[in-house]
């Protein structure tokens, strides 16, 4: 009856107690990260860039409601998907009632640049448990990736460095997220008040056009864009917006065919092991 309180919460807590402990632990972790000076360095550096991204976020919000989505759907999409160019690409497909797999295939292809980033970030994140890695991946967009890897060209070796790197990245990610969502939501609410005659959804198309131009580094990439555009237009009669997927396949296959193979060192027969393909 008079036993002292146990220092640790007992393991047979009711579910709400366990959740409470978990939430408290997470809040503690977040506060720990936010107290790190580099968190605020990351936040400050990101806010300079984010000002430029606000027009983009606003445009995405406007395009969602102008395509005929309800405010609820647009809010959900903005808060959950959190990917500007994939959203802008998926919006007309959703409005046209394209099959889900066409929408997903298109969004996946638009997002393939993140697959390349993740290969690079792997060496930075592998020490974390999987759930934390996925959360970090989800919140790391184009600009925060570029700023993070520019500031830290090498992954951390010590616990101290790891904490500093993560604090910087989370500082940038949080700023990016807040700027993005605030202006995306502004676009959603103001967009439904602007007249349809203005054709403001064209701003979404222009936003994607600007990203397309930014990706056109190198002749073959520019050619890939031209082939895909021509194929998407000439195959426009295909049902279910299949012209998009078909155009991607045609452009990638043609570019792979035209792409000069990267020069490889000639195989050295002395090093070749038997049975090694």
């Amino acid at each position: 009856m008079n036993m002292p309180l146990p220092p640790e919460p007992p393991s047979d807590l009711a579910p709400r107690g366990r959740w409470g402990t978990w939430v408290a632990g997470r809040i503690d972790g977040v506060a720990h990260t936010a107290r790190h000076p580099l968190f605020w360095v990351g936040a400050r550096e990101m806010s300079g860039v984010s000002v430029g991204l606000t027009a983009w976020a606003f445009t995405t919000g406007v395009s969602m409601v102008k395509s005929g989505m309800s405010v609820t759907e647009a809010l959900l999409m903005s808060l959950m998907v959190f990917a500007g160019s994939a959203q802008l690409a998926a919006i007309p497909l959703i409005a046209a009632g394209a099959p889900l797999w066409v929408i997903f295939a298109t969004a996946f292809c638009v997002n393939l640049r993140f697959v390349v980033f993740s290969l690079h970030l792997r060496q930075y994140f592998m020490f974390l448990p999987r759930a934390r890695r996925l959360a970090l991946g989800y919140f790391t967009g184009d600009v925060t990736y570029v700023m993070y890897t520019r500031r830290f060209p090498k992954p951390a070796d010590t616990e101290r460095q790891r904490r500093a790197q993560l604090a910087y990245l989370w500082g940038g990610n949080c700023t990016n997220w807040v700027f993005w969502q605030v202006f995306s939501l502004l676009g959603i609410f103001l967009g439904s008040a602007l007249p349809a005659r203005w054709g403001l959804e064209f701003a979404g198309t222009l936003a994607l056009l600007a990203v397309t131009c930014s990706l056109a580094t190198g002749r073959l990439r520019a050619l890939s864009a031209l082939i895909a555009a021509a194929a998407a237009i000439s195959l426009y009669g295909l049902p279910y917006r299949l012209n998009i997927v078909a155009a991607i396949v045609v452009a990638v296959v043609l570019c792979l065919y035209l792409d000069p193979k990267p020069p490889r060192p000639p195989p050295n027969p002395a090093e070749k092991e038997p049975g090694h393909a």
Partner: protein
Amino acid sequence: MRETDGWTLLAIVGLTVISVVTRSFFFISEREWRLPEWAQRGLQYAPIAALSAVIAPDILLSQGELGNLLRDARTWGALAAAAYYFARRGGSFVLPASIGVGMAVYLPLRLLFNL
């Protein structure tokens, strides 16, 4: 007016999964692994092809047909945005500024001249 339906919700949830999977692609699994060589080369052509395939019909087609492009506000807006981008490439805020320039050409043509 409908607020939402199951199909749209499914699309939104699926797109969220795609955001998580593509951004974490190479650190989902603990195992070290590589893409086949052709897929790695294909990675650099697919994103631009996808974006271009989405926007080309939106800029160039009217009701599924190639109309008179010279009398279309979208053509001039898109040309202005692309020209601005390539002229100022590498500058700061060039992406939002390109959208602004494109809209500044598009809106007057559309509203004043009904192009």
